């Protein structure tokens, strides 16, 4: 059954939220949703760009109190 997993990349300059997402996707099942938490506003552009390029599914992006919540779904 598909799950939603939190990838907490707040305060992570290195490796950073996108790399944390790449690792988390490897450990997930097709259909799983991952919600990346990031304090880097660049993530709101970088993550959807990579997700589309690699062929996963971008679900949503929102900002709350300086924390971006970016949801993606593993598609392959």
């Amino acid at each position, binding site marked *: 059954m598909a799950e939603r997993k939190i990838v907490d990349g707040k305060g992570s*300059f*290195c*490796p950073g939220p996108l790399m944390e997402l790449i690792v988390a996707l490897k450990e997930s099942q097709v259909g799983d949703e991952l919600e990346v938490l990031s304090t880097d506003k660049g993530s709101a552009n970088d993550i959807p760009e990579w997700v589309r390029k690699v062929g996963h599914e971008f679900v949503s992006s929102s900002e709350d109190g300086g924390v971006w919540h970016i949801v993606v779904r593993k598609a392959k």
Partner: protein
Amino acid sequence: MKILIVGGGMGGTILANNLARRLVQELKSGKAQITMLSASDKHMYQPGLLYLAVGRMTPDELYRDQAGLLEPSILFHVDPVEEFHLDANQVKTKSGKVHTYDLMVIATGSRMYPEGIPGLAEHAETFYTEASALKMFKRLQSFEGGKVVIAVGVPHKCPMAPLEITFMLHDYFKDRGMSDKVQLHYTYPINRVHSLENVAKWAAPEMDRLGITYETFFNMKEVDGDKKVVRSEEGGEVPYDLLITIPAHRGMEVVEQNKLGQNGWIPTNRTKLNMEGRENVFVLGDTTNIPISKAGSTAHFEADTLGENIAAMVKMGTPVREYDGKVFCFIEAGKDRATYAMFNYQTPPDPKAPTKAVHWFKMAYNKLYWVSARGLL
């Protein structure tokens, strides 16, 4: 208090010595006891492998006897843990001995895992073990020219390694008079040449200046050794004559076997450094799942924090400070210039232009490390 440290790498060793110095009276009186369990009687200076791979260090420079690095008050056993029984506050070692503890620190480190990418282990050179670094150097010596591709897996140990090996390879081939015969091509998993934005802003023009080509959003999918190409998850395909990899890493198998954390990374509180859900188990260095660089300096600064906190817990029953995410990484920008990046959870790094002075400080630190491991620096 019986303190058990599992792992004798950089983090475990610095912590053990730090604690032994802070708890001299308690260790003498028997109020505290420090035991270290390690898989080896040797201690390796892992950053030295980078230099070994390009012929700038020899293997003997990488090692010291572990027992000689430790304060005499530390009980040291070469007997790796095979079973963790957290509910019983005990571990069982390879020899079958059971050690009980009041407080345990797990610092077992990480290992490269090239096997996760088909063809990578068979066809790429790397430098994360003594044997692989020596093999890589011999391959470099016999290389007569062509396209050298640097490919990076995630997560990996030492975030500066991809850049450092690239710049050091540039100088290696230049010194051999092969610059016109070698094309260095750097790949990186995200949309810039380094995860740290300010480091990427420095490194990309440096690569342009040196004639090093690069492409981003390149996550290895497979290596075809017959066709000599590496393919990416993003649909890219890069031919190579020599493939150098910074492979993905995993935590140690014993962590996975005991179901302490997926892929060997233990869920860890990012400021208190305790294992999630456990008040008397702490995690150090590469072994944590904290979204932070897997680097020796990370382990060092975490060990400093834990040393203060555990000593305070022995003396007054409570920790005294939190880990702020501090990391300090030297960045070798070739054979004779270097810079550095220092950052924490709140503040990004601001690396300066490389200088010879920083390079020579790094050379000095390669020797000073042994003082650091003893808990003196």
